[in-house]
């Protein structure tokens, strides 16, 4: 039974997020004065065809570290969902 890995990749806090900054400016221009800050990241869905959740989790973590994120400047988090 496959699993759906929902992976979020975000820039580390110490890295300037210029996209977030640009959108933040746009929202301020639109009058949203209470919007304090914006950080933009990536959301990635990966279907993993594994029977065991442990194995699906291992693969999800491995691909997140290896390709989906760059640990030098990004963090990732993952949620696993069982697909019927």
């Amino acid at each position, binding site marked *: 039974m496959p699993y759906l890995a929902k992976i979020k990749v975000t820039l580390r806090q110490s890295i300037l997020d210029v*996209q977030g900054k640009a959108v933040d400016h746009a929202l301020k221009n639109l009058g949203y004065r209470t919007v304090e800050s914006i950080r933009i990241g990536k959301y990635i869905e990966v279907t993993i065809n594994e029977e065991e959740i442990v194995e699906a989790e291992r693969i999800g973590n491995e691909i997140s570290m290896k*390709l989906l994120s*760059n640990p030098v400047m990004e963090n990732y988090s993952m949620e696993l969902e069982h697909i019927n």
Partner: protein
Amino acid sequence: MSEIIVGVVVFPGSNCDHDTEHAVASFSGIKPVMLWHNDHDLQGAKAIILPGGFSYGDYLRAGSIARFSPIMQEVIDFAGKGFPVLGICNGFQVLLESGLLEGALSRNRDKKFLCCQTSIRAVNCSTIFTTLYKEDEVLSIPIAHGEGNYFAPPEVIESLEEHDQVVFKYTDAQGLVTDDANPNGSLRNIAGIINRQGNVLGLMPHPERANDKLLGSLDGRRLFESLFCHISGV
């Protein structure tokens, strides 16, 4: 004497590959060969250049997908054996993603894609890529990138400086390393770094676009010349 082969890797989305080929071919005794990303054969190259562009559309992160292409497995082995590898712009991004160089490149500080002439200095002239430069000399070499903001954790930056691995820095016209002269927000104005072994160099500026009088600057030429003197044993 037979010609020395220099490989120029072509990824889908590379767009400085032919400029680089042209620059390499302008040296007598050196023959460029184009190496397709899906191949494993380095065709007897004595040095490899990863050119600028937008490999794989810069999807996910610049250089991240190119790093896993078949040819890169060979390039990583080649570098491991001590042969010279030069990464320009997107090629630098690929080298960082490959782990051949340390650090990462994020989006330019001021959000803009920058395409302009910059002043840089070779702050280490004892590498195989920079022997023909002088440290106090200001070079005019263009940049063209959206993600050239060099970042690495503080301990990595310290270690790079300590081991003279920072090779190029952005400067003002007088050669001073100032904040105003920093086009993209790179830490310590870093424009190019080399690995500890001294055979893998990555830089954001484009030496192949400063290789002909017609292009407005010849300052990039000596980078190739230094490298080619090294591989031909001159």
